[in-house]
């Protein structure tokens, strides 16, 4: 499954798709030319409203990350932030994850976790999801 969608997270589904496509394009996981699943397939697979998916695709098209070709699936064009092929530079990719880091650090402080405890939790998750 290409996307991990959580309808209950509070973050609207179209935003979850926007962020995931942006990240995967930046990291080079989604290469130019890659075809994305159709709105219908994604909607049925995740049992979510099709319009929220078309909205995400249209916004990504407007950003220049995706292109719509008549009768063909949405296709990855390249990174909106410059480099058409390959990875966005490391510092730019770190910049993209910073808002999430801010949230994690804030939550950890509210829970009065130590830095070591937070790093440990992150490392555990990292290893769990390592392929």
């Amino acid at each position, binding site marked *: 499954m290409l996307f991990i969608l959580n*309808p*209950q*997270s*509070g973050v*609207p589904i179209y*935003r979850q798709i926007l962020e995931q496509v942006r990240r995967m394009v930046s990291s080079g996981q989604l290469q130019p030319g890659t075809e994305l699943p159709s709105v219908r397939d994604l909607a049925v697979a*995740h049992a979510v409203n099709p*319009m*929220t998916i078309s909205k995400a695709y249209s916004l990504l098209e407007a950003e220049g990350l995706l292109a719509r070709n008549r009768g063909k699936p949405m296709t990855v064009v390249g990174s909106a932030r410059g480099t058409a092929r390959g990875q966005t530079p490391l510092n730019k990719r770190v910049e993209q994850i910073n808002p999430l880091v801010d949230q994690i650090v804030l939550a950890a402080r509210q829970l009065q976790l130590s830095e070591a405890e937070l790093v440990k939790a992150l490392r555990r998750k990292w290893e769990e999801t390592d392929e």
Partner: protein
Amino acid sequence: MNSATVEASHLGKMFGTKRVLQDLSFGVSPGDVVGVLGKNGAGKTTLLELMLGFTQPTEGAVRLFGHESYRLPGDAKARVGFVPQQDELVDHLTVADQLRVIASFYPHWDKDLMSRLCQEWGIDVRARIKGMSVGERQKLSILLAFGHKPDLLILDEPVASLDPIARRQFLEQLVEISTDGRRAIVFSSHIVSDIERLANRIWILKEGRFDWQGDLDSLKESIVRIHLRGSGRLPEVLAIPGALSVRRESAFPTAIVRDWTEGAQRELERQIAGTVEVEALGLEEIFVELHR
């Protein structure tokens, strides 16, 4: 020609001297999936019944496909599908008989869809309805509303008795229906997570009025939890615009606010000389907060 599936203006309903619904104006377009939320007694069923023309409005009007719903002509009626809270199945019939009876009312009955869904949903067409469980009856009642491919599907608490697997199958079928973009669905449910998946528009009814009406995405962006991090001591009294509730017991106060905007954020950050973190809320939390 009109493109709206449903249009209502200043709709109101009284039962005797009791006001049940008041001043509801809304539209439903082809492709919309509207989720209707409200506590018990908020007026959800009455609203759906007004749309269906089962009862006459006391004030205002509601139109389906351009016709007043209380006087809906037969051909327009055939474009509506309805799943009531209490099923209207005939006990002594078998599933196959019940299917035949309903099919006979409609010229464009989709027999193939019915057979496919009976199989996928595990409904035995030879079973007698009398012996079916509440959940099985509900599945059948939903399935019957799909058969004539209605342009407007109205469902009143359709999933209350379904197990999680059956609910998921039901949701997938609703997605199938909505993907062609020509048909509209309006459904009420207490299972907020289902509405969160399926709906693009939300109506929150509170004491007979709309407490919120609009896009689910806008709702989630407008009602949020904020975390205040002042640089020094925060003022005793905080002027938080649109605050539904404020919690100050920890070092970092939090608040749930409505009508949140970036402008409101900048203003508040200036007031506390610090930063405001915004946390998105799930629909269930939003619903609960609106009812505090």
